[in-house]
C-alpha cells in the first residue's frame, strides 16, 4: 500500500523524462532515416538503406572545402575564445575592477544581440574600413559570439573557488605563474573546457554571422548547406547534418576521454 504512490510518482517521473529525451532525440532519428533512405525526399517508412547521400556529401568538393574551412575556423575560435574568455573571467572575478558587473554585462552582450545584427555590423565595419572580407574577419566574428560562453562557464567555476588553496601554494613558495598553472588553471579547467566545447559548437554551426563574413569562394558548411537546400533538398543535407552531429559528439567524447571532464564536473 505504501509503495504504490511512490511507484506512480516514479512512473510519472520516468514518463516525463522519457518524453523529454524522445523530444530531444527524435529530430536526430528523423535526420538519420532521411540520410539512409534512397529516396531524394523525406519518406516514412523508409524504402531501403543506402549510403549514396554520404558518398555524395564526401565526394563533393564544395561540401568538403566548406567542412574543412568550418573545422579550421572552429579550431581557431576555440583557442582564441578560450584564452580571451578565461582571462576576462579571471580579471572580472579577481581583479577588483571598478564596474565589474557592467563589464561582465558588456562581455556577455553579443549573446543578447541577434547574431544577424552582429554579422551585419561587423560586415559594415570591415567594408567601411576598406579591409574587405579576410578569413580572419570570420574568425573574429565567431570569436565574438563564442567568448561569452567561455566567460560564463569559467565565472561559474570561479564563483565556488576556494582561494585559500592558491594562498597555501604561495605560502609554500610558489611564484604567481606557478600558482596559476599548477593550482588555478587545473581547478577552473572544467569551466574553461565546457566553454571551449560551446565555442566549438557555436562556431561550427554559426550561420547568421558567417552569411555576412564568408570569403568569396570560401564558404563555411552552414552557408553552403543553406544555399544547397534552396535548390536541392535531398539526402545529402541529412548526411551533412549527421556528420555535424557526429563531429560535435566526437569533440565532447574526446575531451572527456583525454582530459577527464567527468571527473572535474563531479567536483
Amino acid at each position, binding site marked *: 500500500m505504501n509503495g504504490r504512490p511512490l511507484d506512480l510518482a516514479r512512473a510519472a517521473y520516468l514518463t516525463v523524462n522519457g518524453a523529454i529525451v524522445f523530444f530531444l532525440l527524435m529530430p536526430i532519428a528523423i535526420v538519420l532515416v532521411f540520410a539512409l533512405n534512397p529516396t*531524394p525526399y*523525406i519518406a516514412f517508412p523508409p524504402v531501403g538503406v543506402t549510403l549514396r547521400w554520404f558518398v555524395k556529401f564526401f565526394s563533393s568538393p564544395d561540401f568538403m572545402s566548406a567542412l574543412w574551412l568550418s573545422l579550421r575556423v572552429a579550431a581557431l575560435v576555440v583557442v582564441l575564445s578560450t584564452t580571451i574568455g578565461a582571462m576576462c573571467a579571471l580579471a572580472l572575478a579577481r581583479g577588483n575592477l571598478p564596474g565589474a558587473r557592467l563589464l561582465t554585462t558588456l562581455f556577455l552582450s553579443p549573446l543578447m544581440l541577434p547574431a544577424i545584427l552582429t554579422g551585419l555590423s561587423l*560586415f*559594415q565595419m570591415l*567594408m*567601411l574600413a576598406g579591409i574587405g572580407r579576410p578569413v580572419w574577419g570570420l574568425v573574429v566574428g565567431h570569436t565574438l559570439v563564442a567568448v561569452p560562453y567561455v566567460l560564463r562557464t569559467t565565472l561559474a567555476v570561479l564563483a565556488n573557488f576556494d582561494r585559500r588553496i592558491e594562498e597555501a601554494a604561495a605560502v609554500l613558495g610558489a611564484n604567481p605563474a606557478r600558482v596559476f598553472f599548477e593550482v588555478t588553471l587545473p581547478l577552473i579547467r572544467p569551466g574553461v573546457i565546457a566553454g571551449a566545447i560551446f565555442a566549438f559548437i557555436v562556431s561550427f554551426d554559426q550561420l547568421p554571422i558567417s552569411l555576412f563574413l564568408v570569403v568569396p569562394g570560401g564558404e563555411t558548411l552552414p*552557408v553552403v548547406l543553406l544555399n544547397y537546400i534552396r535548390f536541392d533538398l535531398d539526402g545529402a543535407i541529412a548526411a551533412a547534418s549527421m556528420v555535424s552531429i557526429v563531429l560535435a559528439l566526437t569533440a565532447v567524447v574526446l575531451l572527456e576521454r583525454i582530459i577527464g571532464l567527468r571527473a572535474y564536473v563531479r567536483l
Partner: protein
Amino acid sequence: MTAERTLSRRSFIKATGGASAIAAFGAPAVLRAQTATLKTTAWGGKWGEVMKATVIPAFEKEFRCKVETVSAFPYYPKLQATPKNAPLYDVLHSNTSEQWQAAVEGLVEPRIDAKNVPNIADVFPYAVSDKMVGVSMFTSAIGFGYRTDKGIVAPKSWKDLADAKFAGQRGSYIIPVNSLGQMHLMMLGKVYGKGLTDLDAAYKALEQLKPIKTFDFTGQMEKALLSGEVTIGVLHDSGIYRYDGQNQPIEFAAPQEGVLALEQVLAVTPGSKVKELAYAWVDFMLRPDIQKPLAEAVWYSPSNRKVKLDARYDAKLYNTEAKVAQLIQVDWRWYNERKDDIDARVARILRG
C-alpha cells in the same frame, strides 16, 4: 539515371572554343591584357556546379581574369552596406525582385547599353522590358507542378488550385520571403480581379485557398510533390523538368491565363572598378554558345533568341516568340513599395 546533361570541362571548352577564339580576338585589348578580378553573385545547386566547372574557367581563360563568385545570401543588404564607389559585387545576379530593390537605391545600373553588351541585341523583348532591371539571361515559367498518379486532370487555370479536392494538398510559398509566392499573389489578383495589382481580389482568393501548405524554397516544394505531401503546387517549370527521365510521377502545367516569368537577371554596379569586364561578363552570359549548355543543364529558357536547343529542351522551354508571349512579368517596383503592408495582411489571412 539523370535527366540533367552532364558537361565536362573538356567538352565544354571544346564546344565553345571556336566562338571563344572569335570573341577573344574581337574583345578590347585592355580586357585581354588585364588580370583583374570580377566579383559576382551566383546560385548554388546544379547551376553553381556548371558555372564552376565550365563557364567561369572559360571566361577566365578568354579574358585573362579571375572571377570570384559569392553564393551566400542575402545579396541586397550586403550591397547596401558597402560603399557605392567600392561595391561588393561588380555584377549582381539575382531574381528581378531583388534587382529592383537595388536599382531603386542606385546600387545597380537600371539599364545596360547595347553598345557595352552587344548580345543584348539578340535577346527577346521580355529580357529588357520596362519590368526589368539590367538584362534577363534566362527565365523559368511559373505554373503548376502536379502529381500524375492521383487521378488529377492536368490543371488548366490558375483557379484550379482552389478546387476543394486539393484542400490541404495544395502548396504555395511563404509570401514575405519567396518571390514565387509574391508573384502567385499578384496572379490571383489578375485571375480573380482587375489585374496583377488588384490586391483586394488577391487577398480574397488567398483566403479561399486555405488550407494550403506553404514553403520557404522551391526545393522544398519539389520534394513535397515528389513525396506526395502535396498533389499540386505553384512551381517553375525547371523545378519539374529537372526530374525528366527519372520516372517520377510529376508534371508541369502551364495555366491558360499565362505563366509568370522568373527571370535570372544580371545588372552591373555603378561603382564597379572593372566595369568593362563586368559588361564583358554580361555579354558572355548572353552568348548562344554559353546559354545553350547552361539552359540544357538546368532547364532554364535562354533569353537569346539565337540559341538552338536540342529537341528534348526545344519542345519544353520558352525559346520562341510565340512561347515567350505567354510569359507574364510583374511590376516589382510597385510590389516592393507595398511589401510591408502586403506581408502584414497576408500573415493575418494565413494565420486566421
